[in-house]
């Protein structure tokens, strides 16, 4: 479980996130919604370690990870995808996944040069795991394609695959649906649901599509104007007038309906 306590982030004079506190419970799918500029991605970047909070603390299973560098959070089981696809464009699809496997022995430069035989077993395991993941995502035919040549939706799948190469605890999905067509989007939803049901992976996703959020998420956190507006189930959220106002802006829609 991830807990944010009074987390704030200021960029110069701009307060992107202000006194934000919420939690991502283990084994659940938590949605983060809010209008553009509400601070959703900034919150994600702080949980993932790409940004340091200006104040406040972040806990993973009770452990304070506020100042842990991004590359060390992965070993705690914390993974993420990016809003704009962050594929390794000049590497093949299967390499994109293999690079996310545990290869610490082969990533030692001395071993890489002088003792390549000692990590062959790990290479086999990494390759097998990568192929298994590609089959799960149904993109195994693309294995030798350069990732840069994939479509936007395929890149999102590939990024999801990258988070599955080791044993994730929490997976943060930053607008996995952005720029993805409807049918692929519902396929991604099925996969997320499956991973949550079968392996108990915890998910936290930023999404604009409320139907998508209501289909997947147990709990929803609404951010508006840099802080948490409210949290609760999707039905409760939908009835909350403040949420409607934050999303659609002071009463305009009511006027249109009348």
């Amino acid at each position, binding site marked *: 479980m991830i807990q944010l306590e009074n987390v704030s982030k200021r960029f110069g004079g701009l307060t992107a996130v202000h006194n934000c506190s919420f939690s991502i419970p283990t084994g659940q799918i938590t949605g983060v919604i809010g209008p553009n500029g509400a601070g959703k991605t900034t919150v994600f970047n702080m949980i993932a370690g790409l940004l340091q909070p200006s104040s406040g603390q972040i806990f993973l299973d009770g452990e304070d990870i506020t100042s842990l560098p*991004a590359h060390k959070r992965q070993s705690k089981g914390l993974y993420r995808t990016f809003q704009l696809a962050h594929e390794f464009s000049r*590497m093949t699809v299967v390499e994109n996944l293999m690079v996310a496997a545990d290869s610490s022995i082969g*990533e030692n430069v001395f071993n*890489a*040069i002088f003792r390549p035989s000692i990590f062959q077993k790990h290479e086999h395991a990494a*390759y097998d795991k990568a192929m298994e993941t590609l089959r799960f995502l149904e993109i195994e035919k693309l294995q030798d394609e350069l990732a840069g040549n994939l479509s936007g939706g395929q890149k999102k799948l590939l990024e999801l695959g990258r988070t599955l*190469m080791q044993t994730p605890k929490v997976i943060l999905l930053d607008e996995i649906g952005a720029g993805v067509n409807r049918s692929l989007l519902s396929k991604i939803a099925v996969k997320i649901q499956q991973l949550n049901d079968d392996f108990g992976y915890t998910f936290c996703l930023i999404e604009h599509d409320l139907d998508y959020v209501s289909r997947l998420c147990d709990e929803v956190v609404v951010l508006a104007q840099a802080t948490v507006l409210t949290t609760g189930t999707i039905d409760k959220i939908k009835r909350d007038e403040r949420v409607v106002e934050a999303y659609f802006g002071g009463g305009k829609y009511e006027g249109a309906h009348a």
Partner: protein
Amino acid sequence: MELSGLFFYFVSFLTMAGIYAVICLALNIQWGFGGLFNAGIAGFYAIGAYSAAIITSTAASNNVGGFQQSIFVGMAVAAVIAGLVGWGIARLCVSLKSDYLAMATIGIAEIIRLIIVNEEWLTNGSLGVSNIPRPFEGVFKGQTAEIVFVLFVWMIVLLTYFISHRLHKSPWGRALRAIRDNEDAAESIGKDTHSFRTQTFVIGAIFMALAGALSAHYFKYFSPDATEPILITFLAWVMLIAGGSGNNKGAIAGALIVWAIWSMTEILTGFLPSEWATRSSYMRMLLIGLFLQFVLQRYRSGLLPERAPKLDKLRRS
């Protein structure tokens, strides 16, 4: 006689092309795999050349030197010093984004050049270091020595190629290429990008220094003129980009082709009337530029583009 003249011209061509091939392979590790824009190649080349020259020279005039150590000791010292300097620079600069790293490394190479020109007690200033031995000088004389030296150079090329090849296909190389393609995503899967880039910079610096050491032994005399950025940094970049950045074979092919154009045009310009001859070096530069244009128009990723390491061994049908 004519034929043997041609043969020894070819030997000297291969010697220099081999030295450039080592620089290119080193640059390929840094830029092709790691995406590190090192525009200060000449600096590391100079460190290697001067370290080897000072350690191995048989006698020194006004500067430190005359240690008469063996060539292998000289090369080891060159590698260690360049590795340490590279490490220090990497600690400071390696997290800079590519174009800023380029500016920083240009500046550092210039600092190194100025130190070499001015610290006469160490380098004998602009007069240069002389009395630098060649490997196996006592055993082989005259033209045989030339052949032995070209073999020695290409042994180093093969060694560099072998190491670079192993690095490329290892998980280390894979992580490095991931960092090159997307740093944030690499961090998100647990890669310590700063550490990988530092290692890459140091490995590249070491091989650039070895190339410098080889050329010091080849020329037997080394002065700051030999570390002109246009001769080292500029040519090495053209070689790698034309040959195929990210491809070790491409790096070697680029070194051979570009050095062929560079050195053979020197012969051609010798036939020009004297008023043209003074402009010859500019014309050669123009030719190299045209060649690069031609290659990049036809082959956008160089003559031998980057290829992913083969995974055949991992496939169980």
